[in-house]
């Protein structure tokens, strides 16, 4: 075994996980209204199945998957459909959403349902069940999970990698899931290995979560080849490509998926969610969210019904402090600023971080001094300095020649840049532009 499981480059932002790392998960009470956007995952949005005025029970399907790379949406609470229309989406846009007035007196008991025994199912049936339950990757990307479970015939997958790295500062959702629900994680691994037909599973956890490593090791199944590996604490250790490199030494070529190098990566929370599907029959209607940050009165780890508004979640956590200036959805390295506190928590929301003036004060931008710090930080070995200069000169074609496509927008370059050049923001724009050009050409 190699001494240090890691990747080259990367950065070490302050972690600030101490705010919530030891706080047990609590259940948040149901708010008065929940809002369920039809687009909560990568791929095509769901189609609504209900009309205003319809009564729904907890766990009812209210949106149907539209195609293969799509998943259905389920009501996370009993209540009445109030309206289907545009509502602030956590990505900053307005998007089609189903608003449900929560029935304050409902015991929130789901309708009776058949819980299939996973062992008796063929892989195809498992995949169908996972899709039907609306499961998506809970690590932040929200890629429909079932798509990853069906590798094409010419691809041989030999390893399941379980992502418990959680490298984003502040966030502790995966940490709490691993320490509080280790059996669920292990059960999810079992189902997943059965479905993929792989012999080996590796759980990668950053070493700053010793209790999680210890809990997982204690609960390892005896009959399967599952190991827990402690990873160097470094951002972006939890990125698929970095994690695969750290645990298997394999590199995913550009334009390829992890399965092309024989690996499928699943987040611990997603696995726990799959386990829950086969334990309770309930679809993905709630998730663990870390609500934290220096601008929040009571940082917590919460089980939140999908669709709860930020406003309600923040209020449950004691509200904001006066210094609060910015609400970030997801981790502070990659998450987006939230313009509207009425936007809902969705399936992919890993956390809400409230930052203060101290973190978000504007800084002056200086010209690039070619210090090369961004090259030393870039985990995919690009030259962000050159890319940034090209972006400023408007040379987008040359940026593509300089392998812009490999950039995964992790933000390491922007983080280290002493001149405060918004590198990853420029790259995101350039990538969007490249996408547009490609579509126009097609």
């Amino acid at each position, binding site marked *: 075994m190699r001494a240090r499981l890691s990747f080259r480059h990367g950065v070490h932002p*302050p972690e600030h996980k101490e705010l919530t790392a030891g706080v047990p998960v609590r259940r948040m009470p149901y708010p008065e209204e929940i809002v369920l956007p039809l687009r909560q995952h990568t791929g095509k949005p769901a189609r609504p199945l209900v009309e205003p005025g319809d009564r729904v029970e907890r766990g009812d399907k209210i949106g149907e998957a539209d195609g293969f790379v799509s998943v259905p949406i389920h009501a996370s609470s009993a209540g009445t459909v109030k309206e289907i229309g545009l509502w602030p989406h956590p990505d900053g846009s307005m998007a089609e959403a189903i608003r449900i007035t929560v029935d304050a007196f409902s015991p929130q008991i789901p309708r009776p349902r058949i819980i299939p025994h996973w062992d008796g199912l063929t892989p195809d049936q498992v995949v169908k069940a996972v899709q039907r339950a609306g499961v998506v990757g809970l690590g932040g990307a929200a890629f429909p999970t079932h798509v990853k479970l069906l590798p094409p015939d010419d691809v041989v997958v030999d390893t399941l990698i379980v992502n418990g790295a959680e490298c984003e500062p502040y966030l502790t959702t995966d940490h709490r899931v691993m320490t509080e629900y280790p059996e669920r994680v292990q059960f999810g691994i079992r189902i997943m290995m059965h479905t993929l037909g792989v012999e080996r599973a590796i759980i990668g956890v950053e070493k700053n979560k010793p209790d999680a490593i210890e809990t997982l090791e204690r609960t390892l199944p005896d009959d399967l080849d599952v190991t827990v590996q402690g990873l160097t604490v470094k951002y972006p250790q939890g990125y698929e490509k970095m994690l695969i490199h750290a645990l298997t030494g394999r590199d995913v070529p550009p334009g390829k998926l992890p399965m092309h190098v024989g690996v499928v990566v699943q987040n611990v929370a997603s696995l726990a969610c799959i386990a829950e599907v086969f334990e309770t029959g309930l679809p993905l209607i709630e998730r663990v969210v870390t609500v934290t940050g220096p601008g929040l009165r009571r940082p917590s780890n919460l089980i939140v019904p999908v669709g709860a508004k930020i406003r309600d979640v923040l209020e449950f956590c004691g509200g904001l402090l006066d210094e609060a*200036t910015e609400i970030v959805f997801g981790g*502070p390295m990659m998450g987006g*600023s939230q*313009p509207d506190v009425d936007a809902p928590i969705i399936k992919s929301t890993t956390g809400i971080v409230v930052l203060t003036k101290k973190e978000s004060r504007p800084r002056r931008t*200086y010209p690039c*001094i*070619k210090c090369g710090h961004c090259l030393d930080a870039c985990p995919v070995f690009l030259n962000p*300095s050159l890319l940034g200069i090209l972006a400023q000169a408007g040379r987008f074609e040359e940026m593509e020649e300089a392998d812009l496509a490999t950039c995964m927008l992790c933000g390491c370059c922007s983080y280290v840049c002493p001149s405060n050049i918004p590198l990853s923001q420029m790259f*995101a724009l350039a990538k969007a532009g490249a996408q547009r050009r490609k579509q126009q050409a097609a």
Partner: protein
Amino acid sequence: MSETSHVGDLQLQLRASPHLKAPDSTPKIMWNVVGSLIPVIAAATWFFGPSALLVLLAATAGAVLTERAFGQRGSLGDGSAAITGLLLGLTLPPGVPLWIAFVGGAFGIGFGKLVFGGLGQNVFNPALLGRAFLQAAFPAALTTWPAATTEWARLRGDNFALPFTTPSVDVVTEATPLGLMKFEATPTDPWSLMIGATGGSLGETAGLLILLCGGYLALRNYLNWRIPVSIFVTVALFQGLLFAVDSARFASPLFALFSGGLILGAMYMATDMVTSPVTNAGAWIFGFGIGFLVILIRTWGGLPEGVMYAILLMNALVPFINRATQPKPYGSPGRAAKRGAREAEA
């Protein structure tokens, strides 16, 4: 990159990710470099008296005033013009007329930096370009090395010569250790070179102190340590080779390392971020090139010292080096081949 939106009673800021920022900033790096030069300046003043301070002041004034007059607004705050002036001053002999030092600073900033568009855009190290200009324009004034005097407070030359006039040289002059070596084949004891008990430019003496100050910057990652290391190793290797061939004619590697402006050049001029390669592979090549050229010019050239020209020549090659040492991106065939080779070795 920030704007504010009002939502209810909250005032929310919108910024692009990442929302955290490393504590370093460009002015912080630059002013740290300036700060790390203070001990070097103090040593120069200790060895050369008030002349040292005057020359440093004049060179810095030339650089800073030019930046102020023609540069972008507020560009003085980033500290880069002050560095240029101080470094230029450190390469000058203590007795040089102040107007010459001023012209050097002005030329370095004006034609070494501002015509290229200011901070971050220049190709040549402005301090060295200024120094090379002075060397070519006023060779006599720039190679007049006053001998050490017993009186600390006495000026070491005609510092106050009127602008555009020839300085009157009435001080006793002596040759620099490199000059002695080159033209009279007389080596100087390396220990006196290290602690600074020799003649020369302001920053050419006290090599150990400069090493320490530069080491501080390297520790804080404000300079790429690969560049000085590769320069020192190259110089030591080549000079060692020459020394092994004929120890009577060629100086020892230790002498080569500590004589002239090599330490100052390697620590402070070659590592100028703007004019050195951005890639680490490029930094090694850059350092090797400087070391090689230093030995070439010192041994086979007509000049006793070649650090300045070596760095300027390699500055000119930097765009080319950067292009040749582009990192191979993750997952690309080039990177896979490199990994394969490494694993085959292991």
